[in-house]
């Protein structure tokens, strides 16, 4: 029995259950938070009727979504259409495996954690393309095409920014990266990379002002135009869970993970610091969404290829040079 509890498999299974529960609850909470934040930015108060401060509103909405009919358009590619929402949620779950919530709160402390998380988040594009293509709808297809182009473009500076940090620590292990930030967070040593990461992460999660793939005023709902019920719900949950993951990665790469500011933990456990910083970053992403209009597609691509990649490359080379010669 002791063997079982201590075994890697047991840890994984328990971890997955916790991750599933956490990611769903977290997504529900984030949807509620987004509506509240948006409300207060827009001179409204947001949901308030269901439960205290309307916190149960998203649960009720979720139940409504589950109860809705799953419509599959006649001309759709059935298999692909059904599998796409599942595909979009799967990589998001994998991401949780390597996130360092606290010094001992990592489900799987892998040496290639950073690589794994970026590799799997790139997988989301495939799901979006599949969903957009399978729906056999022009708006959905346009949204999917845009999404692929955008994600591919923004993945490069995103990786380059993360690579600068990896170079400094000489490790792709999240635990070690966070440990290296005990005194000074990397955002102070790598401000450019941090900024690039945040911008690209917003683009990666298709959030405004980079929400071109689902630009509702142009493409109705983009790649998930034809989805209904919980299939739509999965895309929706994936977006919010994705937002959590990119913010959590930003926290561990640039904002000191479970460490308090400048080594002062103030008596709070690491996981509290980690979640606090993650939710603050999420709040910033929401704040940006409700403040800015949307970029045009070609402007967005120009920004990625002509500005972000150059900047990230220059930053990477500078980091390498400093590490080598100083």
């Amino acid at each position, binding site marked *: 029995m002791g063997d079982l509890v201590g075994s890697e498999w047991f840890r994984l299974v328990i971890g997955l259950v916790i991750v599933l529960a956490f990611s769903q609850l977290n997504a529900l909470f984030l949807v509620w938070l987004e509506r509240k934040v948006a409300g207060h930015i*827009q*001179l409204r108060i947001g949901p308030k009727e269901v439960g205290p401060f309307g916190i149960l509103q998203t649960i009720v909405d979720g139940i409504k979504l589950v109860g809705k009919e799953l419509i599959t358009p006649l001309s759709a590619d059935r298999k692909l259409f059904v599998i796409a929402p599942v595909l979009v949620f799967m990589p998001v779950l994998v991401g949780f495996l390597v996130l360092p919530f606290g010094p001992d709160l990592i489900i799987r402390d892998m040496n290639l954690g950073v690589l794994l998380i970026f590799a799997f988040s790139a997988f989301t594009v495939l799901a979006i393309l599949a969903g957009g293509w399978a729906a056999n709808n022009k*708006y959905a297809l346009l949204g999917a095409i845009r999404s692929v182009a955008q994600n591919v473009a923004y993945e490069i500076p995103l990786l380059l920014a993360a690579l600068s940090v990896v170079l400094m620590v000489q490790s792709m292990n999240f635990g070690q990266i966070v440990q290296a930030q005990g005194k000074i967070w990397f955002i102070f040593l790598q401000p450019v990379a941090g900024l690039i990461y945040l911008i690209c992460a917003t683009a990666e999660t298709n959030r405004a002002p980079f929400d071109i793939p689902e630009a509702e*005023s142009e493409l109705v709902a983009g790649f998930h135009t034809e989805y209904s019920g919980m299939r739509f719900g999965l895309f929706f949950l994936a977006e919010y869970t994705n937002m959590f993951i990119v913010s959590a990665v930003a926290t561990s790469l640039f904002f000191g993970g479970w460490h308090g500011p400048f080594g002062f933990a103030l008596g709070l456990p690491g996981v509290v610091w980690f979640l606090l910083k993650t939710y603050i970053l999420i709040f910033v992403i929401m704040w940006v969404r*409700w403040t*800015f*209009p*949307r970029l*045009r597609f070609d*402007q967005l691509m120009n920004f990625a290829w002509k500005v972000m990649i150059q900047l990230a490359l220059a930053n990477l080379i500078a980091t390498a040079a400093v590490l080598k010669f100083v």
Partner: protein
Amino acid sequence: MAEPFAQPIVQHIYSLNLGPQHPSTHGVLRVLLDLDGEFIVKADPIVGYGHRGHEKMGENRAYKQFMPNTSRMDYLSGMIYNHGFALAVEKLAGIEVPLRAQYIREIRSELNRISSHLLWFGTYVMDLGGFTPFLYAFDDRENILDILDRVSGSRLTYSYCRFGGVNRDLDPNFVDTTRAFVARLRSRFPDYENMVTKNIIFINRTRDVGVITPELARQYAVTGPNLRACGIAFDTRKTEPYELYDRFDFEVPTGTRGDALDRYYVRMEEMVQSCRIIEQALDQLPDGPYRNTKVPFPLTPPKGEVYFAFESARGQAAYYLVSDGSECPYRCHIRVPSFGNLHVLTEVLRGTLVADAISILGSVDLVIPEIDR
């Protein structure tokens, strides 16, 4: 066996229906787009989904019975259309209007113009993806609607004008609340400027997008802010002043490039000018009767015709009425600005991106029921 060098037939161009049910066509506009990738090869606006036969209705009922219809064509500047219709019939029948009534109508028309522009501002920025300014604009617009509502009992479809005056006198608070509102709106303009006008993304989305040249504007009879954005200072309130517009000091803002950004600037500046008109009118507002009580009933204008043009929030609108001496007009035709403003887009949209099409469609400020009427 297939020919070894046969070229596959590749169809690059596909068509996309933008509307009639689409989040940003505002109403029931359908634009049939021929696309090459995301570039527009051909844009064909299809109108008529909201046809209700207003002109025919006008010919089948007494003049005053047509008044409610007039605010239902352009539902965003209903007061201005009421006002125009009253002026047209008064000109046709030679009815005198007391001075106070003229001031009241004009103040309300200008308030209506501001509310229409505010709604345009909000929805336009929303089309471009910024949701928050929309609610700020609606907050301000709500105040106008309250002011207008308190006098006429209606938020959009006022039917407030009567031949020879207005339906009811102003309520005692009207002057104070209107003054307070104008002051409040003035204090909000810097907010709008910081939020939208100076926003780099907004400027990128609108600058040099959807340029309407002065020649094109003349060809398609584009009027209103869209025309003024090309640099032609044509405003019916200035060129053919009706009612009391020649008594007030206001400017006609114009642009230089004729793009979406200029149309935005012109509309924002027009709100400031409308505020000026309202303030001057409130200062001069005389006491006296609000309605000419000597209007004959039933009203039978003498034989003849009248073409009366006025400036709605979207451009020059006009009523053409022919009287055969009976209770109903023999012919009732309405010129609406949105028709020309929409059809110029067949030329403007060519070669732009779908994202630009949304920006351009929004920037010309269309009200589709006005076109279909």
